[in-house]
């Protein structure tokens, strides 16, 4: 697929000056889904979202409609929406664009979503570091309250909705939905043990929906234009668009929305202006640090959709690509990421708490020239122990990262080994 035109659902106003203000946003169509929204029932909206095949854009890619359908609509208990803006996955910086350049689109999405799941309170959990951007979001919320778009009786439709920005304080793991809710309850961000059946999330024992910022920001388009309009973008199983992003060794790093299904290399060349300094590509981490690295050959086969990326043994993740040129030292790159995971492991369960530290130590030994050949095997073995034995998917992701780097670039790791050590 050749990129012929920019297809935008979420980023259409990013380039407009003062797009974060209510007047400019409204002028360019924000809040235009509201009229239709209030003509629909909860069940109808959820059916439309299901029909659109909108997939979660925080990294997991689970169908959003199915998640919404888990909310018990007839409950007497209050229900909540928690919007995940804890964007901390290395290589990912797209939600920040939404909350600072089109916060009203997010608010509009929150209104649609809360109305659908019969919730009257939404929290936007913004990572602590994004203070400047959450300030912009907060002013937009204030403006929306002022205009009667939020508050006791929104749009005079007899519906009450409060939106609260909740600031994190520096913890990658709080992007995991259950850890996010723990944090939102005022606790340490420890992921919860998974339930045995499919069910909604719980905030202080109240039914709760957790969705990523971009997912919610995609909702107004679908509510306004219908599921079919959304499915006109992308592929049949990965419909719509994603705020893909590039960083690292590209000429024009940044966030560029694209529909699913285009070739990764086309994306890099079209939006990113190719590899920096005319170098050759060595590898790309396709969707945030926790997705398995692709070699240049694999990148040649990669298309930006969930299915192709899965077939390549990796995943689409957040769509945040980290591009590495031919001069990149893979041992140092992996060490860099393992330091990240070592620092960010919550420490709750054993394989992750001890494993992330241990692999980091061995990698340091490798770089220091005091590691033996068996140490590479040892890393792979620890990595195996970290996969599938933990409470959350943090450790399995680390395991994938290690496995990708070492199996695909093994000779580089072996070149650091000192066999003369006893």
């Amino acid at each position, binding site marked *: 697929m050749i990129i012929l035109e920019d297809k935008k659902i979420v980023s259409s106003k990013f380039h407009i000056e003062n797009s974060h203000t209510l007047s400019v946003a409204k002028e360019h169509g924000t809040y235009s889904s509201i009229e239709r929204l209030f003509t629909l029932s909860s069940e109808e909206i959820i059916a439309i979202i299901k029909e659109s095949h909108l997939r979660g854009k925080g990294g997991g890619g689970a169908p959003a409609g199915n998640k919404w359908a888990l909310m018990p609509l007839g409950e007497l208990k*209050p229900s909540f929406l928690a919007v995940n803006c804890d*964007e*901390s*996955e*290395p*290589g*990912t*910086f797209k939600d*920040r664009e939404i909350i600072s350049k089109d916060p009203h689109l997010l608010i509009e999405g929150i209104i649609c979503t809360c109305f659908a799941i019969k919730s009257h*309170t939404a929290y936007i959990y913004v*990572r*602590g*570091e*994004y*203070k*400047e951007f959450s300030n912009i979001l907060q002013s937009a919320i204030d403006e929306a309250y002022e205009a009667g778009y939020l508050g006791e009786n929104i749009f005079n439709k007899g519906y009450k909705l*409060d939106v*609260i920005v*909740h*600031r*994190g*304080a*520096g*913890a*990658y793991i709080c992007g995991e939905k259950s850890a996010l809710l723990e*944090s*939102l*309850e*005022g*606790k*340490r*961000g420890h992921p919860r043990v998974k339930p045995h059946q499919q069910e909604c999330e719980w*905030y*202080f024992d*109240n039914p709760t929906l957790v969705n990523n910022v971009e997912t919610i920001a995609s909702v107004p388009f679908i509510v306004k234009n219908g599921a079919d309009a959304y499915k006109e973008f992308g592929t049949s199983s990965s419909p719509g668009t994603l705020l893909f*992003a*590039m*960083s*690292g*060794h590209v000429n024009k*790093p*940044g*966030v560029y929305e694209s529909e699913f299904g285009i070739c990764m290399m086309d994306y890099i060349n079209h939006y990113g202006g190719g590899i920096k300094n005319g170098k050759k590509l060595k590898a790309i*981490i396709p969707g945030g*640090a926790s997705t398995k690295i692709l070699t240049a050959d694999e990148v040649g086969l990669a298309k930006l959709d969930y299915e192709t990326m899965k077939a390549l043994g990796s995943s689409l993740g957040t769509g*945040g690509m*980290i591009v*590495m040129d031919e001069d*990149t030292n893979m041992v*140092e*790159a992996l060490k*860099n*990421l393992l*330091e*990240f995971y070592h*620092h*960010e492991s*919550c420490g709750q369960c054993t394989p992750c708490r001890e494993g992330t530290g241990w692999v980091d130590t061995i990698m340091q030994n490798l770089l220091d020239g005091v590691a033996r050949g068996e140490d590479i095997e040892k890393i792979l073995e620890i990595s195996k122990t970290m996969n599938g034995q933990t409470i959350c998917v943090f450790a399995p992701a680390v395991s994938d990262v290690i496995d990708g780097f070492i199996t695909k670039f093994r000779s580089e790791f072996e070149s650091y080994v000192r066999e003369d050590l006893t």
Partner: protein
Amino acid sequence: MSFNFNDDNLEKIELLKSKYPKVQALSLPLLWMAQYQDGFISLEAIQEIAKICETPMMEIYKVSTFYSMFNLQKLGKYHIQLCKTLSCKLCNKDDVLKSIQNELNIQVGESTSDGLFTLSQVECLGSCGTSPVMQLNETYYENLTPISIVEILKALK
């Protein structure tokens, strides 16, 4: 020594209480508030927050040690938090770090003797498209070079 939230904050706390189903949820907002009020989070502040959140002091203390942005000790007036994760690393953050260390004559984890600067390296700031990046207190400085960082620091001295 004791800690009391100022009147402004007390008013905000009352408002916050109405926004959450349980008062325990206020621990992060209140820790932030205390850190803004004093520049760091003291044990006295933790005790006061525990009282407001109707929870044992340990609950607040352990939360305060989990999140990397809460400072239980006083820092320099300007807290340089240089991102060290992969995209910034690929875009030569190490050169920027050297430049900072030369300019301020301190190592990572240290503060200048005049108490003006504290230098930290932090994990991914979520600004990979404009790397290398640092957060100076709460402001992002993006697309840093070894030269631009010196200009930024000089302007603050």
